[in-house]
């Protein structure tokens, strides 16, 4: 396309317009307009099947949209690739693959190494440094199947860190890890943001959104709301995002088998995901 070279919304880390993705005729993402400024730590939140992972994958070119366009720092993905780091869902690979933690982290450099070139000492040193950043330097030579779930997730994050990107996408990095690892991951991501990088995380836990993130995207096939967490994290927005799958527990709002929330009637922290009645 002729206009690919021209910058379009270059001040935004991520700009998505009119994006629609469908799978077997049913829309998974519909008419997504999304802007994420640089230097924020953003959460993409929504119920199961809201298209959170699909949104990231279509931004990264892993899923082909049927309409719309995506720009990263004003450029199409293939021109901005060097500035983007990616942490896929941990369950998306076979952890019994015969390789070591250090080797997996080194894979983060394959894209920029170019054809036929082998990773050498410089690449190994960069990978070791990234492992050190996530506190995994002692596990460099460990077979990846022998790592715990949290350690595997840290290895995946180290592989993205070694990409030295300006914009990071993480798909459910906190899924299935213990509380210590979750805190460590949040600390790593905050350090990135404090260095001016942009971090976009698919997140599943409403309870921690306000303490971890400063930007929020509420998604349920369509964008429900987006903006700074303080403005976006409202009871009305959450109710609209989760629809029938959520019950807003307020005093005098009897829910069978559930204890009414006691403090702060409109505090959305007391939202609980509930099965449909």
């Amino acid at each position, binding site marked *: 396309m002729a206009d690919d070279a021209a910058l379009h919304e270059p001040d935004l880390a991520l700009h998505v317009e009119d994006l629609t993705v469908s799978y077997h005729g049913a829309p998974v993402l519909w008419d997504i307009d999304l802007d994420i400024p640089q230097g924020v730590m953003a959460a993409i939140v929504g119920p199961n099947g809201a298209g959170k992972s699909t949104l990231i994958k279509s931004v990264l070119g892993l899923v082909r949209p049927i309409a719309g366009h995506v720009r990263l720092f004003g450029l199409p993905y293939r021109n901005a690739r060097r500035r983007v780091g990616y942490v896929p869902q941990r369950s*998306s*690979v076979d952890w019994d693959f*015969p390789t070591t933690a250090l080797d997996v982290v080194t*894979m983060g450099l394959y894209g920029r190494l170019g054809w036929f070139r082998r990773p050498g000492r410089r690449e190994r040193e960069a990978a070791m440094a990234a492992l050190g950043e996530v506190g995994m330097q002692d596990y460099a030579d460990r077979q990846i199947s022998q790592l715990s779930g949290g350690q595997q997730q840290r290895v995946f994050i180290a592989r993205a860190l070694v990409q030295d990107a300006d914009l990071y996408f993480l798909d459910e990095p906190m899924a299935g890890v213990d509380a210590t690892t979750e805190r460590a991951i949040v600390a790593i991501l905050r350090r990135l943001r404090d260095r001016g990088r942009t971090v976009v995380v698919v997140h599943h836990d409403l309870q921690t959104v306000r303490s971890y993130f400063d930007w929020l995207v509420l998604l349920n096939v369509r964008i429900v709301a987006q903006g700074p967490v303080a403005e976006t994290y409202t009871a009305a927005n959450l109710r609209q995002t989760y629809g029938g799958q959520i019950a807003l527990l307020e005093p005098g709002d009897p829910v069978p088998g559930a204890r009414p929330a006691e403090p702060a009637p409109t505090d959305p922290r007391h939202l609980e995901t509930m099965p449909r009645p």
Partner: protein
Amino acid sequence: MLAFLQDYTIQTVAMGAALLGTISGVLGCFAVLRRQSLLGDTLSHAALPGICLGFLWAGARELEALLAGAFLTGAAAALLVLLIAARSRLKTDAALGIALSVFFAIGVVLLTRIQAGGGGGQAGLSTFLFGQAAAMLRADLWVMAAVTAVAILIVVLLWKEVKLVTFDPGFATAAGLPVVALEIALTVMIALAIVVGLQLVGVVLMTAMIVAPPVAARQWTRRLETMVLLSAGFGVAAGVTGAMISATARGLSTGPVIVLAISAIVLVSLLIAPGRGLIWTGLAALAERRRLRGRQVLLTLYRLAEEHRDPAYPAEKGTLDAYHRAATGPALARLEAEGLVRSVSHHPEPTPHWELTPEGHARAEDLAGRPERAK
């Protein structure tokens, strides 16, 4: 024996089997790690209609025409699998099964049709079902060697790309690698490996040459490099062994004997490989059970000593057996060997008694303080 090794046919077959073992062992690793073990099965079965079409086209049993046909229908089946998996709700395993049965059925129909038609030369076609090593010529070896060399060269040159695509295709795509092209290249090379092996092993058993060497090799190593080399080595060993065995005995078909040889390697690897073998993991579980039992007995002695306010309280073995509802003798003997307990006599009772040593007392205190401490 020397005369036997100098036999022209046996040499040819052994070299062919070694080449087949190399290419299928190397490429099989990526198929197995990409969870496409069945791809080889589908491709080889789908080669049968191609062989028949090649025969019909050439009008005679010309090897080039037969193998070209085999490659084309194999590739068509692979394409069909990709299409079904991408365009329908079926998963890849179902798509592989569909392609396998449809293509093989067409192949058998064509085969029986050709055989019913009579005429010269058609009798040789059914040997492709199970392979016929004796029909191999020296000229065929050059074709096999060339295909093997190309496949190995591609794998060596594109090592890091192929590795990343095999481990994490999503990340590879995001990193800008042409994942689809690499996957097609791997699939085409596997199809070539199968075509190369058809004469020797036949369409029905060919999949074993793709799947078995990597499965055996995976047991012995934690590195992809070593796995690929070992897999090729196992493939060569099985190929040459099978060729030799079938040459020494009358009436043993080469292909199935090669497959039996590689199966034996797989069986041994599954049993005894250190770290992953069944015997190894069984022994590890036994050691873990013993460790737990030792801890339990040590803690029982400790609690008895606490109860009696005597760190060296001598407990009767019968008491320990009754408490654990099992003979604690072996566990006590192991604890004694570690210097944690010692056997004492407790006059006037004639039965054996055991007490904690100071080290044993310290260890038990440690365990009691943090009973679920990680190893």
